[in-house]
């Protein structure tokens, strides 16, 4: 029922948001692209001219690159594994009848609302401190030597901290999806003699597959960009330097803008590969 008049009004109403996002996307993106082809060292002479693809090859061939890619993959993979496996189990559990369901939900979701710098510092000091941390007390209680978590199991520690923040998110999304499952289907299967395990694998899990995919994609994008959790715990030491952190160090710590920008271009490409899959699912959902 849209008239010509309301169409042009609609365009004007959309304009500010579209214009701002366009500027916000294009200007920094073009600058990053420009810098990635320059030999740009602000503290050592400024812009020293065109560098060709030098920055791109140097970023990839530096000794820090492949370890950082590996660390990134391990952290993203670890967080996804923990949050999906435990998220599915927790969601199924929370869907069952129990007393105080609302309160348990609140307890489980709470970590997602904790500021990343707070959760990183609380874990680093009050839990993972090798002398006074809760985990050290626990280890001593069982007669074991306390771990120096952020040195001896540094990557695992980061995975633990980040998972603690994202497991609640996964659980909440999966719980929402489970609640839309038709319970009569499960009852019919039960009457036909399907075991609980068969019901889980052939009814619940397929029903959840779309929600799981969405959790995987969204978490991948956010966990690829994890920063504060590393910044305040290890500062990138002990093998916890991710691709994001490596780029941050190149740009702001060693002020090698050309090199850091080339890294940035790689990070943008990587995130876009994930984003394409996410947008496809979201886009399909818009049609109906």
């Amino acid at each position, binding site marked *: 029922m849209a008239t010509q008049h309301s169409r042009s009004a609609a365009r004007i109403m959309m304009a500010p948001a579209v214009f701002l996002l366009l500027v916000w996307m294009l200007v920094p993106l073009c600058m990053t692209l420009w810098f990635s082809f320059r030999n740009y060292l602000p503290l050592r002479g400024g812009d020293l001219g065109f560098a060709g693809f030098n920055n791109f090859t140097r970023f990839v061939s530096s000794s820090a690159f492949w370890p950082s890619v590996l660390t990134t993959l391990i952290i993203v993979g670890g967080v996804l594994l923990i949050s999906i496996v435990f998220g599915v189990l927790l969601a199924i559990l929370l869907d069952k009848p129990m007393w105080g369901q609302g309160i348990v939900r609140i307890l489980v979701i709470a970590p997602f609302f904790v500021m990343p*710098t707070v959760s990183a510092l609380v874990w680093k000091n009050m839990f993972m401190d090798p002398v006074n941390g809760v985990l050290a007390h626990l280890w001593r209680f069982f007669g074991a030597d306390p771990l120096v978590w952020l040195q001896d199991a540094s990557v695992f520690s980061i995975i633990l901290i980040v998972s603690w923040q994202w497991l609640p998110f996964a659980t909440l999304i999966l719980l929402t999806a489970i609640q839309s499952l038709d319970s009569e289907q499960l009852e019919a299967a039960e009457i036909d003699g399907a075991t609980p395990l068969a019901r889980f694998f052939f009814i619940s899990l397929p029903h959840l597959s779309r929600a799981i995919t969405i959790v995987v994609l969204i978490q991948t994008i956010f966990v690829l960009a994890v920063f504060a959790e590393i910044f305040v715990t290890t500062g990138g030491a002990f093998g916890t330097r991710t691709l994001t952190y490596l780029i941050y160090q190149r740009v702001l710590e060693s002020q090698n803008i050309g090199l850091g920008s080339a890294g940035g271009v790689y990070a943008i490409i990587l995130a876009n590969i994930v*984003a394409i899959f996410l947008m496809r699912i979201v886009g399909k959902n818009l049609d109906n």
Partner: protein
Amino acid sequence: MARAVTSQRKALNTVVAWSIGLLIFFPILWTILTSFKSEAEAIANPPVFMFFDWTLENYSVVLERSNYMRFLTNSVIIAGGSTLLGVLIAVPAAWSMAFVPSRRTKDILLWMLSTKMLPAVGVLYPIYLLCIRLGVLDNRAALVVILMLINLPIIVWMLYTYFREIPGEILEAARMDGATLKDEILYVLTPMAIPGIASTLLLNFILAWNEAFWTLNLTSVDAAPLTAFIASYSSPEGLFFAKLSAASTMAIAPILILGWFSQKQLVRGLTFGAVK
């Protein structure tokens, strides 16, 4: 045909779920408890759980020592300002996309979503440089604008999904009754849109409050919010567990309370309507 649940089963579910829930919540509980301990009790071996001399000393020390109020004010201004500004810009956009959709609406929505996927670190230096050149490094207004731009795609999306649930027939009925465009917006749409707008404000305030990439990298003193205040505790001097806990509790308490009200909106807002 609801299944009869034996109370035994229900009791078992309850015990298991509560244990796991408390385990997940424990770090937060422990932080809150530790904030009321003395520094000596905070590192007592074996640890004390509930039975210690409860004290408010840590809170008064933190409040005195570190200009806590300035950080808090900055957090409120940056999170609140960016959210309000974002909603102001997004409401007309979402309104027009929901009620006057065109062939390009879907593409525009997906494109907006794609800007949210841009990794911040990829554009760190350009933004940093622009802030220096414009003289707005460590400036609250600059952070308000940047966090607004970061959350704008989510704000537009959330509002769009809420607005789309408002039945279009109601508008037609209002028009038949002779309502002008102004009447339509003021008396028909606004009352129906307010719950959606409130939810959007709430969730995005939380997201902006917790944002810790730009707030850490673009502030030092004047504009530093609570994220930076807490990060300044990462180099400890002496006994500090109890004070760290007090500072942390103050930084997360308001958001935990708001967060509990926004569970449903969280699903809608962060999955872009793909999970309902």
